[in-house]
């Protein structure tokens, strides 16, 4: 009848107790975010989930404010964004934070994903947690793609044209799908309007999936740098105040980097061409997506066949979904996997190389480089992971987290 988690906490405050007896939000917070036993050996990589959540809230808050002034019509969109920058009180600040917030949201999520891959956080029993995360990543990419179209600059228009046109590669129904996506015979007003509606909607779906993601996390608790499960209270600390304060510190440091870019280099991560109003009759010399899409863009262009490129690009994300089953190693954390540690580093370098490939026109040496980098990306997931898990000899692992921490203090 009362909370089904054993003895409910007793609240001294009568108002809180009254509410909690009817809707146990306070006991929930008490259990999940105060006393919740969390491994004591987190490093700063573990901050990035909280940082990503802060960025999500920031994006929604700034986004709603922008929505009160934006006009989703092809004749007025560009000017309405400029009006926000120039005339709306502190409009430039809100727009700047939203624009650069997207980039920093992706930075936080990429670091968060790296942590998950390096420390084996996707392995049993956290496979569904990982998959929910990939779903969030996909929703973020859709949201960001549609959001970039809204200012209706040259890159907005032509980037959208290129990416939506991809679907025409699908045999038989491809062209119908593209016409359906566009709501017309090219990117136009119907497309802009629906992208605006969906861009406003999707973040709230992301919030819902993030909630599921956190619920899934709390079933078995967090992973930790050793990959060894906590065996008792000597291995854990209560989430508050240990990790609330550490996360708080990490968030502030992240915000410093974010502020440096937002206030002193606001257009650094963007493309100058997007300050030219969209012109369907003039194609920019180089169509480039935002930086966080560059590796996937490179993979898309690496395959000479149009349909092949589309399949490869979506395949690059699809492999993430099945990662828990591709990795055959019985050891979670790369800390104890001497060879895999280097493979992870190579993967990061590979993705960075793919990013550079995506930023440059597909000509000269960039072509064989993108192809090699794409092949290596799939090699890592489809061949290296399954094989390495079977043949690698892991380093000796300490019996528990507490032992690992004590050893580190002594050593």
């Amino acid at each position, binding site marked *: 009848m009362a909370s089904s988690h054993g003895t409910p906490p007793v609240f001294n405050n009568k108002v809180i107790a009254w509410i909690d007896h009817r809707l146990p939000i306070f006991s929930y917070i008490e259990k999940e975010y105060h006393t919740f036993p969390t491994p004591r050996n987190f490093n700063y990589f573990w901050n990035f989930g909280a940082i990503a959540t802060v960025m999500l809230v920031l994006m929604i808050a700034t986004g709603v404010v922008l929505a009160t002034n934006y006009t989703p019509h092809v004749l007025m969109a560009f000017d309405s964004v400029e009006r926000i920058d*120039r005339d*709306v*009180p502190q409009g430039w600040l809100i727009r700047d934070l939203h624009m650069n917030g997207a980039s920093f949201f992706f930075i936080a999520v990429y670091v968060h994903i790296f942590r998950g891959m390096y420390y084996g956080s996707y392995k049993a029993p956290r496979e569904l947690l990982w998959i929910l995360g990939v779903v969030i990543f996909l929703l973020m990419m859709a949201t960001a793609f549609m959001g970039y179209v809204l200012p209706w600059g040259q890159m907005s228009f032509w980037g959208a044209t290129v990416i939506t046109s991809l679907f025409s590669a699908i045999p038989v129904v491809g062209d119908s799908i593209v016409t359906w996506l566009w709501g017309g015979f090219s990117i136009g007003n119907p497309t802009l309007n629906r992208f605006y509606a969906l861009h406003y909607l999707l973040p709230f779906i992301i919030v819902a999936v993030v909630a599921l993601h956190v619920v899934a996390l709390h079933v078995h608790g967090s992973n930790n740098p050793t990959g060894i499960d906590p065996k008792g209270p000597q291995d854990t600390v209560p989430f508050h105040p240990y990790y609330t304060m550490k996360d708080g510190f990490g968030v502030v440091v992240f915000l410093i980097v974010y502020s440096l870019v937002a206030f002193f280099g606001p257009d650094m991560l963007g493309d100058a061409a997007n300050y030219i109003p969209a012109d369907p009759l003039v194609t920019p010399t180089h169509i480039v997506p935002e930086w966080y899409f560059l590796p996937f863009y490179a993979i898309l262009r690496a395959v000479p066949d149009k349909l092949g490129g589309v399949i490869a690009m979506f395949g690059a994300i699809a492999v993430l979904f099945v990662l828990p089953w591709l990795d055959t190693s019985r050891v979670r954390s790369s800390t104890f996997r001497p060879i895999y540690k280097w493979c992870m580093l190579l993967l990061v370098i590979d993705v960075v190389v793919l990013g550079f490939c995506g930023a440059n026109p597909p000509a000269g040496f960039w072509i064989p480089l993108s192809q090699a980098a794409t092949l290596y990306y799939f090699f890592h997931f489809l061949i290296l992971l399954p094989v390495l898990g079977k043949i690698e000899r892991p380093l000796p692992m300490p019996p528990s987290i507490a032992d690992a921490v004590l050893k580190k203090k002594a050593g």
Partner: protein
Amino acid sequence: MVATGALGAVGAAAVAWPFINNLNPAADTLALASIEVNVMPIEVGQAITVKWRGKPVFIRHRTEKDIKEAEAVPMSELPDPQTDNSRVTDTAKKVRPEWLIMIGVCTHLGCVPLGNLPGQDKGPYGGWYCPCHGSAYDTSGRIRKGPAPLNLAIPQYLFLSDSLVRIG
């Protein structure tokens, strides 16, 4: 610890401020908060309507007869007693009885009264007449008969010269 909390609270307030302030009128809206009208072209006995802050503003160049009629009305006859003099004074306290400047919105339920354009029914008091529910205003824009409770509102205005008036 307390210092951190205090600093954090200050930070939170500083962050919240732009989110609240952005709903305040934007610079382009504020630019239209006041308008300047050249009244020289308005003949005696003529009236024009200008748009100000989204509302109609009546500017009538009153005749001597209009002014005398307005000044002769005893306060006891007025549902909303106001002297004609007080209704033609600008923010610099200068009285120009020949210029009546009013917000052309009936104080009953918001219709735009007739009487500004030539040929329109000026109503029984020679001023304005609201066709919606029959409110009748006199040559000073004061309510005389009908359901409207108040006289037609006078906006803040200032004559920058004899021919140029700034409204708002």
